[in-house]
């Protein structure tokens, strides 16, 4: 049985992003995002019968899905925490589509919430975002390896060594995404332009990654409501059909070969959707770092392996030809909601709601989610026609 076109995204809810202290924890942002998505779809809370919850690094109080189910007084046929790291959004949407297509549930909310930023205290300092993400892991931490930045820096360094990729090319990705963000009123960097000089002048995080090679940290929530294609057609917004979903998990570690889980996820998702790469009109690629975008462009085959640097610099992610990539500004310049960043912008583009940044062609849109240094991947192909 193919899932193609059987289900659709009927609702999208996005809270304010960034230094947003409307809620004290991830669940508050998740609940707000669910309410926004229900209103967007023209659905009531009682219409929901499925809840798939992903929380970022900040929520450490056990199963978020149970807590949210309780606090929102939901009655569900499907309830789970979904944690495949940054890949979770694509994973949850696939689970929702499968559940709906097989009659396990009817209206499923896939929601992400995170609140790593703490409000400033009187006389003290706010933030602490880096601390939330700077977790030690096993033996490597004895050598000063904390968080995720360093692993992606190793990928960038290796790519530079093997293929001659330059700092300017990584910078071009950061700048192109910023230019998209400057057209996106929801973006944290909406009003702040970025030049190559700014990029080079920004501090090193883990060399060769500058500050602007690394994604934002955001408080916020995003909810996507999935239902059957039939039901979606009767709701408020034009349906965004789920045409194909796929996961791909490479054994890793990715630094060894610079190979990723993308080709496996792509094969499944594209085959289900009945599309080839040339059919994709907008690509929203997970971009926790500039190098992630570069390796994703190669992984999907937008350019050959090793040529991601020149490709990104020449096409400027769609500003100067080729396919529009990360049209909302991505995680680098818009907001960091893990896989919900590419997924939310893919939905906006497919609906034609992108305003100044809207791609004229948006019938087939790709959202790609990754984690584990690109070894774990999920892909979602969305479209305006079933």
């Amino acid at each position, binding site marked *: 049985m193919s899932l193609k076109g059987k289900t659709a995204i009927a609702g999208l809810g996005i809270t304010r992003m960034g230094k947003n202290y409307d809620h004290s924890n991830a669940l508050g942002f998740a609940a707000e995002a669910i309410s926004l998505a229900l209103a967007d779809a023209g659905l009531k809370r009682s219409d929901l019968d499925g809840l798939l919850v992903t929380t970022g690094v900040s929520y450490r109080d056990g199963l978020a899905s149970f807590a949210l189910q309780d606090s929102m007084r939901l009655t569900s046929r499907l309830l789970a925490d979904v944690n495949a790291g940054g890949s979770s959004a694509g994973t949850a949407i696939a689970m929702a589509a499968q559940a709906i297509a097989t009659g396990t549930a009817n209206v499923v909310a896939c929601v992400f919430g995170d609140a790593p930023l703490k409000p400033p205290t009187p006389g003290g300092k706010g933030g602490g975002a880096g*601390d939330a993400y700077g977790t030690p892991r096993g*033996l490597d931490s*004895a050598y*000063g390896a904390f968080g995720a930045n*360093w692993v992606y*820096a190793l990928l960038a360094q290796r790519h530079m060594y093997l293929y001659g990729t330059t700092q300017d090319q990584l910078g071009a990705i950061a700048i192109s995404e910023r230019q998209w963000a400057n057209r996106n009123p929801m973006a944290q960097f909406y009003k702040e332009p970025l030049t190559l000089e700014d990029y080079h002048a920004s*501090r090193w995080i883990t060399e060769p990654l500058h500050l602007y090679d690394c994604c934002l940290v955001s408080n916020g929530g995003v909810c996507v409501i999935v239902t059957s294609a039939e039901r979606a057609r009767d709701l408020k917004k034009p349906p965004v059909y789920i045409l194909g979903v796929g996961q791909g998990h490479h054994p890793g570690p990715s630094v060894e070969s610079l190979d990723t889980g993308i080709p496996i996820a792509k094969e499944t998702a594209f085959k289900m959707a009945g599309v080839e790469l040339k059919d994709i009109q907008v690509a929203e690629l997970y971009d926790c770092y500039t190098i992630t975008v570069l390796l994703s462009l190669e992984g999907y085959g937008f350019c050959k392996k090793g040529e991601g640097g020149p490709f990104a610099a020449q096409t400027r992610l769609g500003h100067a030809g080729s396919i529009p990539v990360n049209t909302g500004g991505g995680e680098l310049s818009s907001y960091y909601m893990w896989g919900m960043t590419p997924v939310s912008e893919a939905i906006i583009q497919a609906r034609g709601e992108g305003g100044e940044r809207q791609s004229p062609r948006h019938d087939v849109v790709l959202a790609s989610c990754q984690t584990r240094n690109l070894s774990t991947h999920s892909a979602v192909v969305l479209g305006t026609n079933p």
Partner: protein
Amino acid sequence: MAEEAKLILNVTRDLKPFFDAARGHKLAVQKCDKCGQLRFPPAPLCLACDSDQASWVTVSGRGQVFSFTIMHRAYHPAFKAPYTLAVIELNEGVKITSNVIGIEPSKVKCGMPVEVVFDKLNEEVTLPKFRPAS
């Protein structure tokens, strides 16, 4: 630095032979008892033949920088930025994450030959690190 560094290091049962060897200034990795394939970090199964039987063997401690990054922020008081984190490809083919020391971080290059040195943090923990090959 020693006591602070110890705080974040969990010497697990899997890694005990690695640290036992390091105290005696030897670099040890796992070797499959069945097919002889080397592996690091320690893992339950051989990637070549699936055998779960393995021993620890000493390797040369010579290799090259496979990739590296310069950490410009210390997330723990045991470390002083900038410092070099690297994946070292040992001559025996196994890769290990470590520090490159004894050289300015900005001078480190991929492909650079390195050799192991031992950094004694305290009586329990000695860490194998790498410096430019002599």
